[in-house]
């Protein structure tokens, strides 16, 4: 409604092909085990699978019963078992137990393991160790790109974040490279590439290797997508920790009874197919009310037209318009219900206080007050994830917590949520998300050299001065450099957003989005050296532009943004906004759609 795309905005490529491709591959794999079989599905694969195939398709290919892979005794009596799993050790152990139990019961069945998106050698090793290698056949289902929306592709690999950024395991880099290779095979080469972060660089290099190995066909195609931008959630990178005053609902949402105004709750997939949703999704939340009320009035008016119709008109109305109106009616009541429930949550408890604290942290004032707010949050045993998120936000914006605060917050956290969270804290420290300021540690080499040159007495003072300088965190420097916190005179009018900050109610522009904007403007990292240095990425910011005459001006305004480690809906909304402003279209490829709470959960050792 409020902001349509510019008329010259390029068309998006058709990604539904990816779904068809994945489905056909799966069918092909199922056919490899002819005859009736029971299918065991990894819970994490269920919802992606639901989006590309249906039970009836599975049935058609002789899948008899469906089971979830979980730690329960298997009741299946089928002679053929097929497992559709992520390549995880615990799945291998599950399968091994099952096969070995069959063996000792003298039972022979056929087993097939389909790894998605690929198998790992560690998994095969476990199968070998458990003595069932050869008893089970292994296949790969390279389903790594799920179109969640017309412009959003998800790899559905939330573990990417923890595996790479916490454990340093590069196992998914090949998966990313393969996915990029698939895209360039289908949609032509990308003439311009940019990236930042070590993981981004490695993925890019491996992908290039793949391309070179199978060069001929890709190269001859006309590029459809002009730019590719890879960025990873590196250590020093600010993740989207601020809470998002929900600009709208996104993705798949569980609507409880209070929303559907019926007894059942409903799982709804929200994307551009939902007409009401497609119009409100990028709106700031405060705009949604007006829009919905307008819609409701229109709908009422359209229904009212039926009064005073003659029979023929009525017949026409019923046959042509009624269905559409009903559909709209259904969607509308759903979204109104959802808004109501969000409103309730927003006005309840201390949402205001929470937002106030987050803004204070971002801007760096009232640190003491914010710290004691977090403390109280912990003491009252309010959501453990929320408490962690606030602590991380404090740590990132302040370059680590003051040791005294760190100790006391940690102690209280362990007391409130359980001592085993000691492990969570160690993880967060490892990932650089929650750290302690080490006095003196923050001095750079140059600074310490300088202080050595002056006399001892003065040195003390200078060191003090430097450390106070260094304490002014990287975040603040970057934020200032890139103007992440826009200065606003007067009220920020959310109905007429001025910049990408609208996704955080005008308070903050997501760092990743600002970087993308700046690089696209310059077509390189030139002039951003200082920012790159502050991000600690001097060695892993890259540009690679090829002269591509065949690229149409349309394709040059299509940009594929690859988020390694996940992206948030705030970032997506912000970039969609940027696209509308500049006449670009963005395509998002992410390892998973995430939010700060999910990141925190990934770091948490204690699964709830």
């Amino acid at each position, binding site marked *: 409604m409020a902001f349509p795309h510019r008329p010259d905005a390029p068309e998006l490529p058709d990604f539904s092909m990816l779904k068809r*491709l994945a489905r*056909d591959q799966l*069918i*092909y*794999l199922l056919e490899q085990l002819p005859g009736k079989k029971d299918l065991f*599905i990894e819970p994490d694969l269920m919802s992606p*699978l*639901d989006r590309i*195939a249906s039970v*009836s*398709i*599975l*049935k*058609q290919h002789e899948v008899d019963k469906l089971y*979830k892979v979980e730690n329960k005794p298997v*009741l299946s009596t089928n002679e053929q078992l097929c497992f559709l799993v992520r390549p995880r*050790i615990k799945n291998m152990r599950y399968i091994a137990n099952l096969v070995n139990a069959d063996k000792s019961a003298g039972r022979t069945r056929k087993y097939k393991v389909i790894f998605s998106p690929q198998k*790992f*050698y*560690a998994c095969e090793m*476990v199968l070998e160790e458990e003595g069932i290698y050869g008893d089970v*056949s292994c*296949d*790969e289902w390279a389903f790594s790109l799920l179109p969640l929306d017309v412009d959003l592709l998800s790899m559905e690999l939330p573990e990417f974040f923890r*595996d790479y950024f916490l*454990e*340093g*395991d*590069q*196992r998914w880099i090949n998966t990313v490279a393969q996915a990029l290779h698939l895209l360039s095979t289908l949609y032509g080469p990308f003439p311009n590439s940019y990236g930042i972060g070590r993981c981004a660089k*490695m993925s890019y*290099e*491996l992908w290039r290797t793949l391309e070179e190995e199978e060069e001929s066909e*890709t190269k001859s195609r006309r590029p459809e997508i002009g730019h590719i931008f890879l960025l990873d959630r590196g250590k020093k990178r600010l993740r989207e920790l601020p809470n998002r005053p929900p600009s709208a609902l996104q993705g798949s949402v569980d609507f409880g009874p209070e929303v559907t105004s019926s007894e059942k709750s409903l*799982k709804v997939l929200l994307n551009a197919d939902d007409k009401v949703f497609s119009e409100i999704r990028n709106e700031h939340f*405060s705009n949604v*009310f007006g829009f919905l*009320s307008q819609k*409701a009035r229109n709908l*009422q008016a359209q229904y009212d037209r039926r009064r005073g119709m003659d029979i023929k008109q009525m017949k026409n109305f019923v046959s042509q318009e009624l269905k559409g109106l*009903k*559909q709209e*009616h*259904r969607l509308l*009541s759903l979204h*109104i*219900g959802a808004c109501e429930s969000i*409103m309730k949550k927003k*006005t309840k408890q201390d*949402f205001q206080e929470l937002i106030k604290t987050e803004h204070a942290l971002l801007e760096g004032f009232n640190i003491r007050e914010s710290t004691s707010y977090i403390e*109280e949050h912990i003491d009252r*045993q309010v959501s453990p994830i929320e408490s962690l998120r606030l602590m991380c936000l404090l740590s990132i914006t302040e370059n680590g917590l003051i040791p005294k605060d760190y100790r006391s917050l940690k102690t209280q956290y362990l*007391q*409130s949520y359980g*001592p085993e969270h*000691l492990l969570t804290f160690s993880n967060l420290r490892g990932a650089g998300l929650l750290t302690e300021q080490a006095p003196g540690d923050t001095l750079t080499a140059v600074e310490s050299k300088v202080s050595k040159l002056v006399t001892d007495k003065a040195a003390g003072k200078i060191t003090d001065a430097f450390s106070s300088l260094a304490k002014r965190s990287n975040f603040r420097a970057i934020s200032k450099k890139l103007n992440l916190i826009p200065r606003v005179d007067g*009220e920020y009018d*959310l109905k007429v957003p001025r910049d990408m900050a609208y996704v955080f*109610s005008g308070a903050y522009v997501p760092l990743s989005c600002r970087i993308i904007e700046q690089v696209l403007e310059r077509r390189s990292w030139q002039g951003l050296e200082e920012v790159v240095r502050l991000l600690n990425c001097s060695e892993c910011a890259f540009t690679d532009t090829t002269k591509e005459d065949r690229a149409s001006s349309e394709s040059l305004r299509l940009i594929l943004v690859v988020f390694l480690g996940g992206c948030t809906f705030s970032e997506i909304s912000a970039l969609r906004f940027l696209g509308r402003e500049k006449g670009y279209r963005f395509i998002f490829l992410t390892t998973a759609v995430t939010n700060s709470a999910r990141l925190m959960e990934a770091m948490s050792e*204690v699964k709830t």
Partner: protein
Amino acid sequence: MNRTKGDEEEYWNSSKFKAFTFDDEDDELSQLKESKRAVNSLRDFVADDDDDELERVSWSGEPVGSISWSIKETAGHSGSTQEGREQLKNQSRNSFSSYAQLPKPSSTYSLSSFFRGRTRPGSFQSLSDALSDTPSKSYAPELGRPKGEYRDYSNDWSVSDTVRRLRKGKVCSLERFRSLQDKLQLLEEAENMHDGNVITAVLIFLKRTLSKEILFRELEVRQVALRHLIHFLKEIGDQKLLIDLFRFLDRTEELALSHYREHLNIQDPEKRKEFLKTCISLPFSAEDSAHIQDHYTLLERQIIIEANDRHLESAGQTEIFRKHPRKASILNMPLVTTLFYSCFYHYTEAEGTFSSPINLKKTFKIPDKQYVLTALAARAKLRAWHDVDALFTTKNWLGYTKKRAPIGFHRVVEILHKNSAPVQILQEYVNLVEDVDTKLNLATKFKCHDVVIDTYRDLKDRQQLLAYRSKVDKGSAEEEKIDAILSSSQIRWKN
């Protein structure tokens, strides 16, 4: 439920307080409500045959027919599902036609490069109908079954070829790399490739063919590979080798944490306690050592309390357990929860017992603030208003009593309200809130009429008092009180 809803509306209509970003003049919530009314009013007209429009949803919320739904169904009946199978048969019959009509794969895009070298003629027979118009294009992934055909018996692959084949997921023997130099070259090549799966594959080989000492020594200078090995050992649960590795690397803290992590896998409380005891002496930082010690002490306490209380509860002699049966065991709960529990069930116990709140407070050095918050929540839940009162009453040296709250009285009020304290009690604490605006806000929100009225009187705010009069019930005592104040000649109103 209705009451809270009413309260909220009241709050929204009466409060000057505006929610963040909801700064529109016309109240958005009422706008929303209006839209809802409009839509609902259409429901009668629409509802007649709406069923076919709505997605059918199972009780658990998944759309009927979805895969997740279907799995729950299997789990549910697991045995005889004649009816379900019948239903599914119908479903598949219904959908067969729809599948046949699926858009054909577009043939303009070549995928053959994708699967090049992996397809053999004749492998698509079963799919021929689904892929009818793609005679030369294959959408098929590599098969597991004919793996043997790809197995490479030649031993001449170079290091880089070997690594490339590994990356493609092909079985490839590493046995011929016997010299340490070859092995390390292999590792290096894998690292340069960036594929973690290949790095791990090489590491599995190195782990098997090198002695621990040599492996550790070589990895110490190869950080990327080292992190892969650590993650691999964590995943397969080779705790022993992991500990050896940390010891070799002199990473004492990681060693300690890794050992401590094990306790999560021990279910039996006694065994877990004994295990935690062994953790105390591990080389943690001084700070963490104290946490581990606390963890052990806490579990030790919980075991004692649990045994004792289970006994008391089953004996049925103790009133508190009869009135409020325990919902869960206290074992492995956080300290604050334990404190809440002990404030709930053992509030009056002498300091000497393990289960007394004061004892917990002392043993674990629980800060005052935390203690008061928890005790307040527990006593309010029991509606023990007298205890609540005592919690905040302090005597000064002259013997005067005074109310003091380390957490701020606005918090106290909120907690009391959450536990549905009566208005008289709430009123008392609302009155203790220092900031006038907060006080008015809370009093309005929680309908402490007296406080609101008195505050406006003290502020000499006639207008607000008049406005408030319209909100109290007609003919109520509150109205009378407002009238009396308004007609009083003693007050010099400011407006």
